[in-house]
């Protein structure tokens, strides 16, 4: 079943101490390790055998589904296509995440392509954490893609986190918002060493009174580099906001490219972006509370990525 390494990865990416309660699907090294369905949440392998279909019955509330992926097999690049069909009026939490343990020189990677269809007035909280560890020098790659379709009056809150150890990440997030729907995306990425991370976000506000807020928090340590693209495309009377902040530590670099497209006269779009080192007044304040310089940096970064 689960060995100590698996447990560590699961704890980090899914806050799980072992096998979770409720519906779950645990994938290890490209194969199904364990699955449980509930009365309201069904999980089945898709016809092609390349991923899963999670179907949540209309009206399902306060339930969660865990779908972690763990990798510890050298040389494996695992690709999955997962579908989530969230029934009308339901309120659920989906916890995904990928943990890689790399023990050797061979590369390991995972690409999770997740497509969400969120029914009318349904609410979804989606939490995704990415993490890689291990003594090996093999390249660890994570290329997640998230496509989300929000029906009228639905709401999605997405927390996307890349904690550390990932050498290369190419993330794509796409969303299409129906009338009165709400999308909140918070992306947090920390890179170190020579790591590279690219995040491309395309949010289409197509329904009247739809609202989207995209928040990106990036920390670049060492010689790492992050690139962030975010486009809000407004096709109706709507509200959209992009907030992207990047903190540079050491010799990290960052490119941030927010784009706003108002293709409807009543669209309201805003963005704020900042890139720079930690502000000296913040460091001075925390040092005046008795923290050392390094402690102050850590607390500021911790808060920033929280």
């Amino acid at each position, binding site marked *: 079943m689960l060995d100590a390494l698996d447990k560590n990865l699961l704890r980090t990416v899914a806050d799980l101490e072992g096998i979770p309660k409720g519906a779950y699907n645990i994938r290890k090294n490209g194969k199904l390790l364990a699955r449980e369905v509930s009365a309201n949440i069904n999980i089945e392998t898709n016809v092609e055998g390349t991923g899963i279909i999670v179907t949540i019955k209309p009206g399902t509330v306060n339930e969660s589904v865990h779908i972690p992926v763990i990798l510890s097999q050298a040389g494996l690049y695992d690709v999955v296509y997962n579908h989530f069909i969230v029934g009308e009026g339901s309120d659920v939490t989906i916890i995904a995440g990928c943990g890689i343990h790399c023990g050797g020189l061979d590369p390991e990677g995972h690409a999770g392509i997740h497509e969400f269809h969120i029914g009318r007035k349904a609410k979804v909280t989606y939490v995704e954490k990415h993490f890689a560890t291990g003594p090996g020098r093999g390249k660890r790659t994570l290329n997640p893609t998230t496509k989300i379709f929000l029906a009228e009056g639905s709401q999605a809150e997405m927390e996307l986190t890349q904690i550390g150890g990932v050498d290369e990440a190419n993330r794509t997030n796409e969303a299409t918002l129906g009338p009165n729907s709400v999308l909140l995306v918070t992306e947090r990425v920390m890179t170190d060493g020579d790591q590279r991370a690219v995040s491309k976000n395309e949010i289409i506000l197509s329904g009247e009174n739809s609202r989207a807020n995209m928040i990106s928090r990036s920390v670049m340590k060492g010689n790492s580099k992050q690139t962030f693209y975010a486009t809000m495309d407004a096709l109706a009377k709507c509200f959209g906001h992009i907030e992207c902040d990047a903190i540079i530590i050491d010799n990290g670099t960052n490119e941030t490219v927010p784009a706003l497209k108002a293709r409807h006269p009543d669209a309201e779009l805003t963005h704020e972006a900042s890139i720079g080192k930690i*502000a000296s007044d913040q460091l001075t304040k925390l*040092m*005046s509370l*008795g*923290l050392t310089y390094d402690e102050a940096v850590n*607390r500021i970064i911790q*808060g*920033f990525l929280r």
Partner: protein
Amino acid sequence: MRLNMLDIKDLFFSVPDRDASDGGSMRTIINGINFTFEKGKFYTITGPNGSGKTTLAKLIMGINPVTSGEIFFEGKNITDLSITDRARTGISYSFQQPARFKGLTFRDLLAMASGTDEEAKLLALIRRVGICSLSFLDKPVDSKLSGGEIKKIELATTIARNPKLAIYDEPDTGIDLWTIGPMVKLLKRERAEHQTTTVVVSHNRAFLEAADIVLLLNQGRLAYVGNLKGALPMLTDLSICSYKECVSQDDVRCFR
């Protein structure tokens, strides 16, 4: 018995003069200050804009490095100590324009300042400070806070350190009129109950009246040290021109 809390000896602070054409000359901000702050007393430092009040306060906290001179805290030379070490030795500082953070709350700052994250202790601290509502605790200390709110939080984190010496740089900026009275009372109570040596940089009459000793700075020098009554004639005079020496009647700033 008089106990020296902080001794300042021959203190100078200079910065490169941006206006100088030769690029090499220095501008002196603090120009030879000698002073002893005694334990448990209340000092208010005042003076015209640009006279060096904030700079002096920052030199004491170690935020600016001294150009020459020495600073002793309880007899120990702290001139070369970092901000962190000065904080740990018992000096606490309230910034005129407090830093704002993305992702840190009042609770986080208060926990760092007091060294505990126990809910009961944090709430007790807020009650002790009195001017912040208990509901402040989980407020993010970010750009959404009003100028008054962040100053109250700043004051609370300063007191939460239980300092031997507390420095408040213009604590009343952005604070509503109804809070200034309670704020003065709070600093007096802290002084009475914890023998906190209190140094306030302020133009506000309320803090000048609260002081045991008023220090009047002008052009980086101590122009007056004593009670408020003695300072009044000079304060009135200095307020005529709060920017620089007025040599010409044509300078409009001299009439502000």
